[in-house]
């Protein structure tokens, strides 16, 4: 397999973008990436999107986006893995270039959630319809159960959950593209409305519109497009049992662990080598569980890790310097690519106020549903 690099990125602001449609969002992000690289053609496009059909009635996104980008003719396909759609689109792009089949591939993710749909119901389609959704569960409920399991097994507290939100909002306040550009206090989080006990409003990522895109090329050609390419050192994907009830331990995200292991192996690195990471904090508890499943810390230590500042900017392994899903926003299909973009900027030294000093190895972890799918990418400064 050839070595692969990201040479350009583009991203809309994330938020309630009333003036932009699904296709507008995609084109804005894609154009920023293409202009950044001065790329005039593409060999392939992968569009990550969870639910264009249910949110805005639009399926068949790949040709629509290629066409709207002015690139009708290019080979394109949509990639779907619920909230991991973006990360999986990036993986497909990586494999396409690594295999030698393509040289110039756009990996993009887009979601338009604010157009009148019943968002809770649409998102619930990522759960097991027959054994979970049929009985009325929704995503906050599933993650609430994961939180309860973690709290019972390891003594994780509501304050630990709040610490994730406080940290990510602190980071997000430094990100001009974040949906919420303001900090929150522990008190605010603890007093916010209960959504699904123990998860409160400020433990949950928001409903967002947005798009993100990266241009992926063979490393040997990267300097044609940028002085500072970022190598994709490793990629690993895995599935876990669909239904939470079928997991060995509901407090442990096995798909995350498997996907990370595969990525670490391909990259030839260990968790201790990481300088910066973007992880899937759809709900605060998710970040705690992912920190453990990535083997950054031992099982059960995720809560105290956040509270100690280990994963804050300035700490040993800053996580979610972008603000994470919680503060930056979570336009479902776009998230995985946006995570990669944050690491891309960190490794190029372009993260401004969010810059992790001297970052040279970064990780992005993107997950679908209650952890039924996970994809991890590891990046290296060139």
């Amino acid at each position: 397999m050839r070595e692969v690099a990201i040479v350009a990125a583009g991203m809309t602001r994330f938020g309630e973008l009333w003036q932009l449609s699904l296709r507008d969002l995609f084109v804005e992000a894609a154009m920023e990436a293409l202009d950044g690289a001065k790329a005039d053609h593409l060999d392939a496009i992968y569009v990550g999107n969870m639910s264009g059909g249910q949110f805005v009635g639009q399926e068949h996104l790949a040709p629509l986006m290629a066409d709207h980008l002015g690139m009708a003719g290019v080979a394109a396909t949509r990639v779907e893995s619920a909230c991991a759609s973006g990360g999986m689109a990036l993986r497909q792009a990586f494999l396409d270039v690594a295999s030698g089949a393509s040289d110039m591939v756009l990996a993009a993710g887009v979601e338009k959630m604010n157009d009148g749909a019943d968002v809770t119901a649409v998102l619930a389609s990522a759960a097991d319809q027959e054994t979970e959704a049929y009985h009325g569960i929704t995503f906050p409920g599933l993650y609430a159960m994961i939180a309860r399991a973690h709290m019972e097994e390891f003594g994780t507290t509501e304050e630990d959950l709040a610490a994730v939100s406080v940290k990510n909002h602190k980071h997000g306040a430094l990100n001009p593209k974040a949906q919420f550009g303001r900090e929150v206090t522990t008190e605010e989080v603890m007093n916010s409305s209960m959504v699904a006990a123990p998860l409160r409003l400020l433990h949950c990522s928001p409903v967002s519109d947005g798009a993100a895109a990266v241009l992926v090329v063979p490393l040997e050609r990267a300097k044609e497009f940028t002085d500072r390419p970022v190598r994709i050192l490793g990629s690993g994907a895995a599935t876990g049992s669909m239904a939470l009830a079928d997991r060995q331990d509901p407090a442990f995200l096995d798909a995350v662990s498997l996907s990370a292991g595969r990525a670490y192996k391909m990259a030839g690195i260990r968790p201790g080598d990481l300088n910066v990471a973007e992880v899937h904090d759809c709900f605060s508890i998710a970040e705690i569980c992912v920190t453990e499943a990535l083997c950054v810390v031992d099982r059960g230590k995720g809560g105290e890790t956040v509270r100690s500042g280990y994963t804050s900017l300035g700490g040993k392994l800053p996580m979610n310097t972008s603000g994470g899903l919680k503060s930056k926003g979570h336009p479902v299909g776009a998230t995985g690519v946006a995570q990669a973009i944050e690491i891309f900027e960190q490794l190029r030294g372009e993260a401004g106020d969010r810059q992790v000093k001297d970052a040279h190895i970064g990780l992005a972890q993107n997950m679908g549903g209650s952890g039924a799918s996970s994809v991890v990418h590891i990046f290296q400064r060139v």
Partner: protein
Amino acid sequence: MAGIVGYGAFIPRNRIKSEEIARQWGKDPDTIRRGLLLEEKSVPGIDEDTITISVAAGRAALERAGIDPTKIGALYIGSESHPYAVKPSGTVVAEALGVGPEVHVADFEFACKAGTEAMFVACGLVESKRVEYAMGIGADTSQGAANDALEFSASAGGAAFIFGRKNLLADVVDTYSYTSDTPDFWRREGEFYPRHGGRFTGEPAYFNHVLSASRAILDKTGLKASDFRYAVFHMPNGKFPLAAGKKLGFKKKQLEQGWVVNKMGNTYSGSSPTGLAAILDVAEADDLILITSFGSGAGSDSFVLKATAELPKRRARAPTVRAMLDGRRRYLTYGEYAKYREKIIVNT
């Protein structure tokens, strides 16, 4: 120039607390109170409707105007709950008030903006000298679907304003209307409850129109927020008007008097008009007042008014808004509320 020569409001005596509605549907009352800033709302009695509310408000306006009702050359009622789909509310109100038969009557409609529309047209007609006096009324008894967020705010009430050219209580300094095709909230013919676009009703609908109209009228008149004593905006809930006021540079003190929604609820076409009435109840000579309404679909009407020295002299002739809000009232259970609002299926 024309202005207000008489004004009046009416709020039904029945109330229901947000807590009572929340309890019914298993919602947390604290969340409602915090999120919407609503404590309680008015509920129309079995024999109250937009017509009866308009008559009560109209009578108070006539008292304060001190004019012969037959001199009223035009009478307009704006509402989204006219009792009939076809049969004007205005004719009933006119007769009840002793207005007419030489009078132009029309019913207005534009979601919650219908009241200020009626006022705008009444004012314009008087300015053009086609009629000597004209009455514009905004009144509603709107429904909120059971277990919907709107159930906490949809209430009943209204206010009436008589426009004339002399002995003004308040001068109309200027007006500005801002309109666009924005479908944030609607009810198709035959449907019992309205539907809405969730968060789309916020920034792209309410705020876009309220702020655009308000900014434009400030621009047009060369006035700043600090020049005003009072400001009132359409009140779909407790939060939106305060947020809009803040964005425009108004301070809490300027917004307080007209902010009646936390006790009254959202009386739709009666909302900002009743807030204006509450302001006229206390305003002093030369006070500048801004009112901006909002109607879904969507549009906003802005007025800049200036109180005159006549206002404090004549306003005691009829009940004040605060007196009605804080005065004799009756709290209903959810069951009584559902009965009065015809939410219970009964055999006819």
